[in-house]
């Protein structure tokens, strides 16, 4: 009974959001909408309007950031873990988290301007990747151990190249952590607001920015729809994590 109550309490805000996204009219003090409509959802599903485009851009940015930071972080973290100046390098990896988000954003905006990427999707991907990259390096530190080093040495003495080492041993052994890192960095990017606003310069409209825009316009029905869309990819990743990742551990 208690479990059902807790489940209902957790599901209630999501149910309200879903109801709002299908509401044609919901005047106070009605408990449920007085009129229902699927037009906004059909608009998104048909790929029309700004929301569908924002959803696509958000997926592109977050998937790119997650892929880049996971791959680069995995390789870099190995070199950091075995480096004689490991502590210093790890400290540098922590810097993006220690800095104030505004200061970090301004620094990354400068990088994007210098690279000619400000106001572009590529610039947002670059800025968010720099932030998530540090996170990935720190996350993977737990993976590298004397035992892992011994595996690497063994593969080399058995005749394996560096590529074969990664493909046949390191990646399979780190599979769970790689998936976890992809999931976490995807979420970091998916809900990123400040960096996207600063580096995107208002021209890159991700779903998170859209939600804030609709809330600012008091457009509750579209804000609810955008929020529902915002929840879908993380929910799918969470399900995939539970289904494939934690089952394998």
């Amino acid at each position, binding site marked *: 009974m208690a479990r059902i109550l807790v489940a209902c309490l957790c599901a209630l805000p999501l149910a309200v959001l879903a109801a709002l996204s299908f509401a044609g009219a919901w005047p106070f003090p009605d408990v449920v909408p007085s009129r229902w409509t699927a037009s906004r959802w059909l608009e998104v599903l048909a790929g029309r309007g700004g929301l569908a485009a924002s959803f696509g851009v958000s997926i592109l940015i977050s998937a790119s950031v997650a892929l880049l930071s996971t791959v680069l972080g995995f390789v870099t973290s190995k070199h950091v873990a075995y480096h004689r100046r490991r502590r210093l390098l790890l400290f540098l990896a922590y810097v993006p988290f220690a800095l104030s988000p505004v200061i970090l954003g301004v620094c990354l905006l400068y990088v994007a301007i210098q690279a000619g990427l400000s106001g572009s999707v590529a610039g947002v991907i670059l800025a968010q990747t720099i932030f998530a990259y540090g996170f990935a390096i720190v996350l993977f530190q737990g993976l590298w151990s004397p035992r892992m080093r011994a*595996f690497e*040495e063994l593969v080399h003495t*058995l005749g*394996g190249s560096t590529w074969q080492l990664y493909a046949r041993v390191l990646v399979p052994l780190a599979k769970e952590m790689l998936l976890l890192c992809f999931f976490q960095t995807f979420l970091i990017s998916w809900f990123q607001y400040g960096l996207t606003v600063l580096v995107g310069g208002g021209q890159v409209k991700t779903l998170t920015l859209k939600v804030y825009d609709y809330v600012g316009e008091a457009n509750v029905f579209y804000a609810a729809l955008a929020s529902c869309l915002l929840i879908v990819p993380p929910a799918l990743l969470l399900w995939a994590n539970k289904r494939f990742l934690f089952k394998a551990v």
Partner: protein
Amino acid sequence: MFLEMRGISKSFGSEPVLADVSLAVEHHETVSVLGRSGSGKTTLLKIVAGLETADRGELRLDGRRIDAVPPQARGVVYLYQEPLLFPHLDVWENVAFGLRLRGVGGEELDRRVREMIASLELEDHARKRPHQLSGGQRQRVSFGRALIIQPALLLLDEPFGNLDAETRAGMQALFKRVAAAYRITSLFVTHDLKEAILMGDRFAYLKAGRLRLFGDRESFAADPEIGVMNEVRFWESLLGGKVPS
């Protein structure tokens, strides 16, 4: 000589680990290197395997300088005290690992892996994962994984150190048999006196980074520093000078 080490020295920071080590190993022989913990045994093997670089000295394998050759091109396999089986692969795939790295596949791979597994008496365990095996079985798989690629030289770093006495004795016998069957050239390091004598064709003693080579078992056993006579005296005093038959 098949393996020749001349004047190998190595320091970690200001601490010398190996000092002017010279050693030669003939084709198809096993040289036992006895040494206590911290005597430089592992560093010596890692230099031969290419996993560490010597500060000074020369290393030749079959007449060819290998100092600058990367580990994957030396044909020298280094076996750790721990079997280090890949946990994501079963016994069959662990044994097949080196062949797959070399692009061997199909019937040849099947035949060679099947033969190796049979020679190690692991037929009933081919599809088991490493965590389903005993310590001795894991070490046998580790041997099979190394031997199947027919390495020029096998380096064994206290490979039976984690096994109980009975399993250890079985593994020693198995190694002797397999080493003879596959005509293996190997360098076997251990801190166990009895094991050093059992496993080697020739013998060396490493102490504080300095290596002494002995021509035969008798001179090795007779050297007071090695400790064989101490062992004999201990057992004689324990049994009152009478060794039961």
